[in-house]
């Protein structure tokens, strides 16, 4: 009889063995993912302090690795919050350590982005990472780190402290990794451009291994309201979460438990729900049996009268910033942006923001240019699987006098406490009925406005053309008839030309 052996593995080990799911699939994806994760951490770190982010990224060539890959040094600097010295080793040297387990909208969702990049660098180049940070206080701390993969622990190789004379605040991360920049380049440039589009208040600088400088300058210092932390909504809970809440709760009755641990539940709602589910309000939650917990979870989902979650935990960009970002990067002839009211799926609030832009720097292609964003992160892969792509493909564009060969860009931004990604790679949004409906409604709204613009423009163009025909021919008729009639003086046709004008000159 065969005997199975079970062995416990650490989180670092797990991701080392399954690096595909974090986006480090191949040398070209890996370099893209490393840059992306660190830039997003930097943006979050600045935004949490309401500081317009300044992010500087430099990728430099260190040497050849294999036939197709090279060793690069990646350096990312920001002006964000900085990290308290005691947290620095864990923040970069321990996978799944982070502050992203509360319910508010954040760019990352697993708390492993930056660490995964460092881990990948260590695996491929066997070199330490350098992290320097200050919260703006008296000192700057620098660490030289590696990760103990088996034990998922940081190993501190060196630690330095400097006096922070200039009150610098921010974080600098530098490490080496193996990758294929040449193949990754188009996506990386796209990534910066699109990040600039939805972060119009950020300065982004990228110096690539050839020394080329890409600079995306902020168009505004206005920033969206940062998201507030919020309690879980009853529709969004599962048994696991219920059990964890029961373990930590200080409250002794079900009424209080519901009121203080759930979003949009007050005395009355708690009372009514407990009536509905036949649980005594005075029951101690810690006394609930496993079966009772499961039934409670089912009833939470079944009860119809919970108020929908409010969206204060979300931080959409807002129409003004979205407009500023798109104008800055695409310079369109016409742009309409729209933000829908918050909606929910499975107890998770979300907001869809959409922009549609025409002309300017937008190229004419066989299909629309689609820019997808989730919590201000550009989604660059698997476009055809994304719900937005499907909604766009299923729309009857002819109704809006729009055809795919027009220079049109469509931007879809979803913000949510839990973005409904289809895969762990966080590359595309799942086709959920609620999300699909919101995107479709919003696209219809902006398309109607685009149609209005296009038909008005067409009308004005036609009028201009009409007028130009009269302006071209009437003077000729005057000239020819005068010659034919043997007259010296040309008849005045200006009045006639003016009489065919339907609009004032400023409108035409």
């Amino acid at each position, binding site marked *: 009889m065969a005997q199975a052996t079970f062995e416990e593995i650490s989180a670092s080990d797990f991701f080392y063995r399954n690096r595909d799911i974090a986006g480090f699939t191949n040398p070209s994806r890996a370099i893209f993912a490393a840059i992306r994760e660190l830039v997003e951490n930097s943006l979050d770190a600045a935004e949490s302090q309401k500081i317009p982010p300044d992010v500087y990224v430099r990728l430099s060539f260190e040497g050849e690795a294999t036939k197709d890959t090279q060793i690069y040094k990646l350096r990312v600097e920001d002006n964000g919050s900085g990290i308290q010295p005691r947290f620095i080793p864990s923040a970069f040297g321990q996978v799944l350590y982070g502050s992203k387990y509360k319910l508010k909208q954040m760019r990352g969702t697993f708390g492993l982005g930056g660490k995964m990049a460092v881990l990948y660098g260590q695996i491929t180049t066997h070199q330490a990472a350098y992290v320097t940070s200050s919260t703006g206080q008296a000192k700057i701390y620098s660490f030289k780190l590696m990760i103990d993969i088996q034990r998922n622990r940081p190993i501190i190789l060196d630690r330095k402290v400097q006096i922070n004379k200039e009150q610098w605040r921010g974080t600098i991360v530098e490490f080496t990794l193996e990758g294929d920049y040449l193949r990754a380049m188009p996506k990386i440039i796209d990534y910066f451009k699109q990040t600039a589009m939805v972060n119009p208040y950020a300065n982004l600088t990228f110096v690539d291994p050839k020394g080329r400088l890409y600079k995306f300058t902020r168009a505004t210092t206005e920033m969206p309201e940062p998201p507030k932390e919020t309690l879980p909504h009853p529709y969004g809970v599962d048994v696991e979460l219920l059990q964890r809440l029961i373990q930590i709760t200080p409250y002794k009755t079900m009424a209080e438990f519901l009121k203080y641990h759930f979003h949009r539940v007050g005395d009355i709602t708690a009372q009514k729900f407990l009536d509905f589910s036949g649980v005594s309000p005075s029951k101690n939650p810690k006394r609930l049996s496993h079966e009772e917990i499961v039934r409670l979870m089912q009833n939470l989902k079944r009860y119809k009268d919970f108020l929908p979650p409010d969206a204060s935990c979300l931080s959409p960009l807002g129409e003004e910033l979205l407009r500023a970002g798109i104008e800055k990067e695409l310079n369109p002839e016409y742009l309409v942006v729209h933000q829908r009211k918050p909606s929910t799926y499975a107890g998770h609030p979300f907001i869809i923001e959409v922009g549609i832009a025409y002309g300017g720097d937008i190229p004419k292609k066989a299909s629309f240019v689609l820019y997808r964003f989730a919590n201000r992160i550009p989604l660059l892969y698997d476009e055809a699987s994304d719900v937005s792509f499907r909604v766009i493909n299923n729309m009857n564009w002819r109704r809006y006098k729009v055809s795919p060969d027009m220079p049109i860009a469509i931007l879809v931004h979803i913000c949510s406490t839990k973005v409904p990604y289809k895969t762990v790679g966080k590359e595309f949004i799942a086709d959920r009925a609620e999300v699909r409906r919101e995107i479709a409604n919003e696209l219809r709204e902006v398309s109607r406005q685009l149609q209005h613009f296009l038909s008005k423009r067409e009308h004005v163009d036609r009028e201009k053309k009409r007028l130009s025909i009269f302006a071209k021919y009437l003077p000729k008729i005057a000239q020819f008839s005068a010659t*034919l009639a043997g007259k010296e003086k040309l008849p*005045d046709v200006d009045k006639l030309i003016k009489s065919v004008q339907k609009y004032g000159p400023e409108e035409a």
Partner: protein
Amino acid sequence: MDQKKHKSRVAEKKNEVVAGLKTLGTQIYNQLDQGVFPTISMPSRSTENIHYDPHLRQFVLGEKSVSRSARNIRHVKPFTQLSWAAMFSNELTTQRKTSTLRDVYYSAQAYNMTFKDQQESNNIITDLETVTGYSREDFNIFPEERSAVFGDLTIEYTVPGYEGKTLNLTSHPDGVLIGPALTSSEFASTTADKVIAIEKGGLFTRFIEENVHKKHNSLLVLTAGQAPRQTRHFIRRLHDELNLPVYIFTDGDPWGMHIAMVIISGSANAAHLRELNTPDAVWSGVWASDIVDYKLPTDPLDDVDIKRLYELQKDPRYQGDPLWQREIKTFLKIRKKAEQEAFSRYGLTYIVDEYLPTKLKETK
């Protein structure tokens, strides 16, 4: 031989044409000067407005008229083109220069007046004909010349550089081209007493070689297929000014028959014009019945020939003289056609010595 004195129409007509163009220009000028959009109206050339007039024995335009207004976005360009064409024609006529339809198309570009294609500029010239009632040849716009005349007719040129010079049309054995210089000439004198129009160049040359002009005291006109409008007008002038009867010889098929008919009764395309046809001219052959009577070598009629015959059967121009319906029926019965050259089976001179005199007598 009796010298026929004719009435000169050439100079008189030139003056009329110039006056007509100037009137049109003044009309447009005055409307513009009064601050209104100029309009021009002219008879409609649509098929439902083309009628056969049994008295004039040609097609004419009916009561329906169309209006071109410079106020209309779709009309303003053609209106301008028409004004230009009128001005250009006036220049040609007064400066006594000639031009072709192709020339017109290109000349417009010098005035920043572009025509989309040759057809568009041709249509505008036809409009000008309709508005003024004069044909483009009157405006000195001529098609490519291909028809010719031969015989004892002395003409007097009116073209610049040749004014007063005369030419006898027997002076060149290939015949004289019926071009602008000839059609604008006055007829000075002739001894001929008839006109024989011939469809094909080969036979025209044969007739000259065989002295048909002397033997039958005639002027020979080569139509070279369907006669150009200036040739039709020229034949009309020979008939009207010199009182000469006109006999037409064509191939013995529906197409040849129709060449004769257009000389006699004109075409629907020229319904807006007058004096391009010669109603008293006669078709002398080759008839379908000649094919039978002279046992000519033949080709079978093909499908298009037969289709054409059925069309002609219903054509109003073919309803007058019973000759036409009789010959159409004969063609349809024998299902055969013959060319003028078919007479060569009886020797090269048979057509001149035997056939021609018989037919001239028969159709007199």
